[in-house]
């Protein structure tokens, strides 16, 4: 079909329809692939439900998270009196405590992850972009830190500086950044050889702006994938510390604290272990599904 031979009206029509078609970007492609992945969608739904419940659930329940009731100690789950998940050894309602614990566990998961992503991305881009001797030294440091049992460091930090939630964020974030730094460095090295970076250099843009404006936006894919896979790891880490009695303190609670208390009382009150455990496992599973789905969506290598 020869374009010149068409009449004016049809030409305009074709041009208009061509303009109205939106190009498919990397991100819209990725979104399409993600929503095709049943496991990832299920994970998204379960995670949203848990998030909404943790945020708004306590508003609709008749008990407060620190409200003790000496007449209702170790009550089994009961639909009549409003203790849907039973009560603990102080007569506190387990469901409210699980929801409050969820708020805390998820907050810690997200904030500590962001801290470590910030450190990791900064370190990794600098090391990868500058290259040379700086890169060798910076990566050797990462290698040395890799050989350390991190968790033991966190335990020492928590013991030394007291059990403070903010410190917990920083301590976890500060030990989890190593892998991020490695991934980011590798990607940066391959990115910096690309033409568009050379163009910016030729235009006289400063190193800082090149890193912030051109390198980091192009790392978004791997960073997002890594975040979804790291949040569950951090939640486990927090629970681990709380389990040892080094995390969150009463009357505040987190899933780790609840599981720890539950495992002590499990012989008489199974619900104290099973319900918080289920919530935590569901959250971890959904996050893992979403992370796997995102990885497949952003890096469509067939497995």
């Amino acid at each position, binding site marked *: 079909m020869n374009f010149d031979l068409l009449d004016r009206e049809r030409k305009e029509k074709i041009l208009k329809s061509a303009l109205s078609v939106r190009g498919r970007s990397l991100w819209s492609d990725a979104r399409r692939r993600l929503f095709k992945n049943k496991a990832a969608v299920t994970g998204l739904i379960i995670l949203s439900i848990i998030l909404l419940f943790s945020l708004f659930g306590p508003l609709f329940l008749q008990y407060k998270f620190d409200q003790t009731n000496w007449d209702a100690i170790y009550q089994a789950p009961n639909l009549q009196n409003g203790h849907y998940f039973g009560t603990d050894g102080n007569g506190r309602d387990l469901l409210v405590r699980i929801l409050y614990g969820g708020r805390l566990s998820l907050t810690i998961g997200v904030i500590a992850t962001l801290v470590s992503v910030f450190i990791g991305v900064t370190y990794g881009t600098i090391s990868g972009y500058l290259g040379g001797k700086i890169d060798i030294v910076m990566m050797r440091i990462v290698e*040395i830190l890799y050989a350390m049992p991190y968790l033991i460091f966190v335990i020492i*930090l928590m013991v*030394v500086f007291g059990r403070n939630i903010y410190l917990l964020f920083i301590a976890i974030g500060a030990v989890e950044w190593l892998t991020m730094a490695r991934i980011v460095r590798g990607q940066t090295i391959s990115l910096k050889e690309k033409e568009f970076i050379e163009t910016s250099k030729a235009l006289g843009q400063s190193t800082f702006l090149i890193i912030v404006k051109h390198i980091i936006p192009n790392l978004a894919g791997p960073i997002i994938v890594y975040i979804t896979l790291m949040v569950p790891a951090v939640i486990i880490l927090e629970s*681990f510390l709380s389990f040892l009695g080094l995390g969150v303190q009463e009357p505040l609670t987190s899933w780790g604290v609840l599981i720890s208390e539950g495992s002590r009382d499990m012989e008489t009150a*199974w619900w104290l272990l099973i319900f918080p455990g289920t919530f935590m*496992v569901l959250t*971890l599973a959904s996050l893992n599904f979403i992370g796997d789905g995102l990885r497949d969506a952003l890096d469509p290598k067939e497995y």
Partner: protein
Amino acid sequence: MIKLIIKRLLVAIPTLIVIIAFVFILMRLAPGGPFTNERALPPEIEKNIQAAYNLDKSIPEQFLIYVSNITKGDFGPSFKYKDFTVNELILSGFPVSLTLGLSSIIVALFLGVFLGTVAGIKRNTYFDHIIMSVSLIGICVPSFVLAPILSLFFGLYLGLLPISGWNNGNILNLILPITALSLPQIAVISRMMRASTIETLNSNFIKTARSKGLSQKIIIRKHVLRESILPIIDYLAPASAGLMTGSIIIEQIFGLPGIGRYFVVGALQRDYTLVSGVMILYATLLIILILFSDILRAFLDPRVKLK
């Protein structure tokens, strides 16, 4: 090869010194020492105690004394377990932790590699789906959730296995702790192994082997396994670090007298020498393991030697 080993050892020494210094400084920064009591001691006694533990000297001096003692293999006296040295405590706990850790890593390696390879070969069959779903459970159920549930079920309801205690290393007492400790690692290893088996099966040298007419069994055993196991060997050191930290909790849940328990108790009670002793032991073990996995890698992968 020898060059590689020497290079690694040279890196290991500064690493250890950094770890020792770090722990040393942190513990000194902590508010409250090991002898802080609610009732203040008479000043002369306090002075004597401090002199006995070298706490009256300046901090750099204390550090030098400590490091020189460590090079002689002496971790000093425990601050809290008054009649014991750190060496004695570690020696009493180490066999327990070592048995637990070694058996867990062996179980995790064999089961993980086996299940992952089979899942990779039989990709997208029911067998594969079952293994992958079970391994997902292993990843999502942390060991401190799994361990109490296991002991509740097998110990209390079924009454098959003892739920706690060491009992001189009786195999029955070890089954539950090893299961709880190794399951998350089995899950991770089998997933990695599956992915790398699939990748290897698609590579050209396997096609060559196929076209030479080798049997499936020989291809898998001689060619696929050797190539696809490499990521697992790199994972050996992180896995062991995970097992070490995991064992701290597992020892507590199952009441095993290993060094993990001493570590937690020591940290909570500011037993400086005990904590840094355990920490140095962990770090040394990890460094040896990393060295071991590097050597194993060079042995299995001839490309490494060229570097």
